[in-house]
């Protein structure tokens, strides 16, 4: 069984993938975190909540995961002086999430002899330092006008070192964020990211919605992963209502998820070719991606499949003729993508840009808790579709693509591999899809019921954790994007590379700003 030897009273949670819930004391956190880490587990989501209205003080929530399942820990914190030990001692990915928790709730990391980064993360001065927007008694009426940002970047000193600040508004069509490069000549000594610019109060917004309405918001946390979020959200609602959607709905969800994976990989492979000096690649891949989007619109009503997945199933069924069209598109795409891969592989200029560029070593990936295709390109064969797995993937024998090099070339190779695997999966789904209804009505869950959703999106694993409120409302919602763990990996991957290689390294990861800014 997963999470052995923790000596915690773990309650199995209902849901599509194996998960347990346990309450812990802050004093137990160090021992639990160490044990899970030593068994190869990782910290994914970390967030806080204000339960003072239910005489519960504050709480800290952790999702720990490994190949066998997920463990959701809830830790009660003091109402007056909420604090907990610095979890980044065991899981480096805790750092930015801890800072976000402080900005939103005023929950502190305990004083420690080790260095704790206490700089703000999501707060850029738009709300004052003593007001915490996710506290239930926050007035937030006199939010200050956002002023100038005096964020304390880490200075890099030495002969010939200079800084290049970039953003938040970038030159291209990219989400906003700030990058500060410290360089000597052309060479990057250090990159420091500052994110949070697109923070739009998603957690607070969720708690004003019904469980039904929340699906629409979940699908807009990171538009490029709308299917993955909508599925994770639906899975969480189904878990809290103790229901399992009809099999046909699950097959259709997997179909959508693989189409989302293909669309994103195609777009990024094109952009990577372009950044590497092969504009031809961009035009070709973007054409293929457009074909995918258009067929999405025809068969499911939306180019990016937004709102196609709803709690209880999917919005509409797909008939046999449309399913056959989807399979036929796979047959058309496959040879084209193969040809493009050969061109990429044979193009000396591209290979020169991709190979040994932006290396993320396996050791660094593991230490940072990197997930998704970025981890797979650094040799970690993790994929939630396979382990712990969920229906209908358990019937499809998902083949996980990996590479060992950890460079841009490795991430490109894994993305190509995943496109081919998704094409295979779609054909298998079209062949094997179960008949029956595509959606079911869900009962109203009891207030306080928890639900967890866990989906391997194209970028990596996405979690949605929900707590039911009264009468089908949301009391608490937290959505976790894999970009939280992978953004710090980008900082590492660029070290020692030249500044002009940054765009191609950045694109090879293509992380979400909106998904981590929330």
């Amino acid at each position, binding site marked *: 069984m997963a999470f052995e030897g923790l000596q915690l009273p773990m309650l199995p949670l209902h849901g599509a993938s194996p998960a347990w819930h346990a309450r812990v004391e802050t004093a137990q956190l160090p021992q639990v975190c160490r044990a899970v880490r030593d068994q190869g587990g990782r910290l994914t989501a970390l967030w806080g909540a204000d339960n003072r209205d239910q005489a519960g003080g504050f709480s800290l929530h952790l999702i720990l995961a490994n190949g066998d399942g997920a463990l959701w820990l809830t830790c009660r914190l003091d109402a007056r002086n909420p604090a907990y030990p610095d979890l980044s001692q065991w899981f480096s990915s805790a750092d930015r999430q801890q800072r976000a928790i402080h900005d939103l709730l005023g929950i502190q990391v305990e004083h420690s002899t080790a260095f704790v980064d206490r700089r703000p993360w999501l707060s850029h001065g738009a709300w004052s330092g003593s007001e915490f927007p996710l506290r239930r008694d926050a007035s937030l009426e006199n939010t200050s006008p956002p002023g100038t940002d005096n964020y304390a970047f880490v200075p890099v000193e030495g002969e010939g070192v200079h800084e290049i600040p970039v953003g938040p508004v970038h030159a291209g069509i990219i989400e906003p964020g700030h990058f500060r490069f410290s360089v000597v000549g052309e060479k990057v000594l250090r990159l420091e990211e500052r994110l949070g610019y*697109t923070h739009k109060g998603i957690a607070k917004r969720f708690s004003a919605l019904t469980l039904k309405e929340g699906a629409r918001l979940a699908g807009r946390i990171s538009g490029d992963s709308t299917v993955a979020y909508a599925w994770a959200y639906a899975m969480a609602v189904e878990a809290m209502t103790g229901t399992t959607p009809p099999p046909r709905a699950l097959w259709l969800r997997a179909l959508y998820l693989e189409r989302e994976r293909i669309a994103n990989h195609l777009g990024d492979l094109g952009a990577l070719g372009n950044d590497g000096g092969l504009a031809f690649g961009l*035009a070709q891949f973007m054409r293929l991606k457009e074909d995918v989007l258009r067929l999405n619109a025809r068969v499911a009503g939306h180019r990016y499949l937004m709102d196609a997945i709803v709690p209880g199933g999917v919005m509409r069924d797909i008939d046999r003729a449309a399913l056959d069209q989807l399979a036929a598109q796979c047959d058309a795409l496959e040879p084209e993508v193969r040809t493009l891969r050969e061109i990429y592989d044979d193009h000396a200029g591209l290979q020169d840009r991709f190979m040994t560029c932006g290396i993320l070593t396996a050791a660094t990936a593991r230490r940072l808790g990197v997930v998704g295709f970025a981890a797979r390109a650094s040799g970690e064969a993790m994929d939630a579709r396979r382990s712990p797995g969920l229906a209908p993937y358990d019937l499809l024998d998902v083949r996980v693509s990996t590479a060992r090099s950890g460079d841009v070339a490795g991430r490109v190779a894994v993305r190509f591999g995943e496109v081919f695997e998704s094409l295979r999966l779609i054909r298998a789904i079209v062949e094997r899809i179960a008949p029956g209804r595509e959606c079911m009505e869900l009962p109203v869950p009891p207030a306080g019921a928890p639900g967890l959703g866990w989906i391997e999106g194209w970028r990596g694993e996405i979690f949605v954790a929900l707590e039911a409120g009264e009468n089908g409302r949301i009391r608490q919602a937290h959505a976790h994007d894999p970009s939280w763990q992978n953004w710090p990996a980008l900082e590492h991957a660029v070290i020692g590379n030249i500044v002009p290689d940054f765009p191609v390294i950045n694109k090879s990861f293509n992380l979400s700003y909106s998904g981590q800014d929330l």
Partner: protein
Amino acid sequence: MYQLLKQVFDVGIRTEPPPPPEESLRVLTQRLENEILRLFNGALAIRQVDAGSCNGCELEIHALNNPYYNLEGLGIKFVASPRHADMLLVTGPVARNMEVALKRTWEATPDPKLVVALGECGCDGGMFGESYASRGRVANVIPVDVAVPGCPPTPAAIMQGILTAISAKPAATHD
């Protein structure tokens, strides 16, 4: 290798003329090209600002440059600096954390300037609305000429929005 590359390039160019557009898209494209020629000497410079979007709208702006829509071919260029821009294309509800950056970009754009707000979010704040973290629609922060609905708006809808904005502009004011 060179042979393979050459062959694919050749074949590629021969067998892939720009996909035939639907009639409505063809008409739209033609009008857009004419107006850009008439009002902007054939070159419209757009600065895109993501003021807090979910990144869905950005996906469709990227799609505008695929061979189906080929926006660059019509004389529209996305530029890296607001100082060179005729138009700002703004997505998202305006996140409080982006308010200053958006205003600064708007101020740095020379007059006369056009602002097109994209998407449900740009029109009315969308799912995010107004809150401690979001100022809601783009017009709450800078003047907007045209707001394009849709979540995200399709590439054709974005092109239509750009066309509407430039058509309303008096030709004489542009040098």
